[in-house]
């Protein structure tokens, strides 16, 4: 990518390895991710491909004893996160980077009120007094459109529905006006109707607050509706990346093609999971020096196993790790979904 002028989050060459000696897992291998100011970048990929590990590595939350993290660069708005001390990382977490997790039912502490949990993050990073923090909590509950926010402020998590709890998580993540929101599959655990509401809320808040979002998801329907750009991850590597328009209208990696193939023809409807590609994700313990997707790819040739494919640029701002991008595209160019995006 050439014109990544001043991205808010800039991750380059991120590799993460778990475990020692025998059972080693190469969870991430040379991952580059840039989130530009004000955009929603979707990180897409199958279960276990390394999306959450990416988020946790950015926040410095991987277990120090088992995870080995290498990176050329992890910066947030120019601040280095990779070499930062624990103390300075703590000043960034929750303050300049807000994080929401997949499971709102268990991500809030059951023994503290939701208002208290929001106020806590404000006091931690803003050093304000109790009353100011409490009124900030109320303001945030209003912002995420929780009805009767004043009454709910003193509620405990078990008194709220899943959707309400996820709204509380969002309120908490945004309470300190972060530059970046990382949302790790924020809707997977919720009912379909609630999913749509939460995604709409995130999209609206991004617009109103001018923040940037790294949206981790399984759901290409969500990507089509809310994201500006996407990065497709497979077995710990980014295999394709570009704006939603370019990638959907000119898919160039066999894995992306498979993902799009599993999306319903109208393209923009929900309920599209990624599991439909035949074959299994390769074990991450001994990554071969080859395209990791080769065994499942419909376009595979002998050359695919000759080495890790280099990055190619099928178009401006469009990157892909595939040696046959044109073959992939040629095959898909007539499909409904690709034509819908052209």
């Amino acid at each position, binding site marked *: 990518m050439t014109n990544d002028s001043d991205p808010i989050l800039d991750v380059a060459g991120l590799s993460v390895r778990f475990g020692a000696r025998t059972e080693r897992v190469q969870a991430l291998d040379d991952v580059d991710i840039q989130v530009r100011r004000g955009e929603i970048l979707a990180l897409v990929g199958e279960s276990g491909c390394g999306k959450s590990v990416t988020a946790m590595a950015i*926040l410095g*939350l991987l277990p120090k004893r088992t995870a080995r993290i290498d990176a050329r660069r992890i910066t947030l708005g120019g601040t280095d996160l990779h070499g930062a001390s624990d103390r300075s*990382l*703590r*000043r*960034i*977490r*929750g*303050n300049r980077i807000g*994080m929401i*997790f997949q*499971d709102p039912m*268990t*991500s*809030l*502490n*059951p*023994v*503290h009120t939701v208002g208290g949990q929001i106020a*806590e*993050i404000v006091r*931690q*990073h803003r050093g304000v007094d109790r009353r100011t923090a409490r009124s900030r909590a109320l303001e945030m509950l209003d912002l995420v459109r929780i009805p009767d926010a004043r009454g709910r402020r003193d509620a*405990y998590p*078990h008194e709220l529905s899943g959707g309400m709890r996820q709204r509380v*998580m969002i309120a*908490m993540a945004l309470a300190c006006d972060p530059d970046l929101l990382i949302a790790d599959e924020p809707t997977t655990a919720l009912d379909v109707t609630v999913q749509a509401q939460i995604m709409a809320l995130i999209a609206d808040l991004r617009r109103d607050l001018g923040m940037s979002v790294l949206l981790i998801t399984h759901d290409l329907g969500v990507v089509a509706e809310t994201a500006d750009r996407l990065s497709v991850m497979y077995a710990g590597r980014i295999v394709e990346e570009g704006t939603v328009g370019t990638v959907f209208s000119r898919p160039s990696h066999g894995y992306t093609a498979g993902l799009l193939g599993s999306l319903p023809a109208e393209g923009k409807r929900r309920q599209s999971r990624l599991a439909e590609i035949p074959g299994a994700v390769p074990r991450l313990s001994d990554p071969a020096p080859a395209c990791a997707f080769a065994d499942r790819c419909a376009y595979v040739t002998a050359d695919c196993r000759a080495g890790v494919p280099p990055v190619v640029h099928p178009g401006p701002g469009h990157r892909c790790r595939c040696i046959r991008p044109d073959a992939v595209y040629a095959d898909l160019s007539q499909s409904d979904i690709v034509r819908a995006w052209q």
Partner: protein
Amino acid sequence: MLRYAAQRILAGIPILLLVSLFIFSLVHLTPGDPALLLAGDNASPAQVDEIRARLNLDQPLWRQFALWFGDAIRLDLGNSIYSGKPVTELIGQRVEPTLVLSTVTLILTVLIAVPLGAVSAWRANTIVDRLAMGFAVIGFSVPVFAIAYVLVYLFAVRWGVFPVQGYKPLDEGMLATLHSVTLPSVSLALVFAALIARVTRASVLDALNENYIRTAHAKGLGAPRILFWHALKSVGVPVVTVIGIGFATLIGGVVVTESVFNIPGIGRLTVDAITRRDYPVIQGSILFFSAMLILINLVVDLSYAAIDPRVRG
């Protein structure tokens, strides 16, 4: 919350009733004539008859219990066979040392055990954890009197920092009292801290794997805040439960400790009464300890609700 409290208090009443029944039958379960038993070894037949009539032993059993219970509720537990004084008065004189000793021990135990367990969990499988839990195993497996004698030897006999034995009542000054109960309290606390520390460690270790702890980290909170405010508070219920259980065993320890340190408390009173077969006093002390246990359980139950909003219902 009020309803919950009322429920817990009401639940205590049948327990107290059962305990009373047990204490009442104590005299009747022991073989032989209760009147003879109560009169002691050197009583004349006239005295025995007098006792039989006074204690309504000629009445049907259920009536005896009703009368005894009615008296007990009015804090009339009869008179000591040995000294002839009312049992309630004897207990009243001895309450202070026992309450001071138990309270100081309980506070010490919690102050040692809970942070120790929590920090061990935070530093699980490190040298800190190993040392702390090694200490816990020792506390667990050595009897109170052994620890007490070691502490007495070191701190009283060798270094003379604390008295070898005895008790200074509160009206001689709070500090004097605390000084006199330091060694007994520490010996007792070391034993009970072990159990509570282990349970705290296990509970906190589980809690640290919860998603809400990950959230707390992502909020940028510091280690003490995460450990004590988020992890420890969420496992308050099991920890308080084991503190309550520990207290039950603590009462046994109090009896031993009072004897070792020659503290004139209810424990000593009980031991003396048992050796003299002073049944009314034995009944009175058991009733006292039972009431204390029921009270502690009530406090434990009420603190559940204070700690965990899901209990309030």
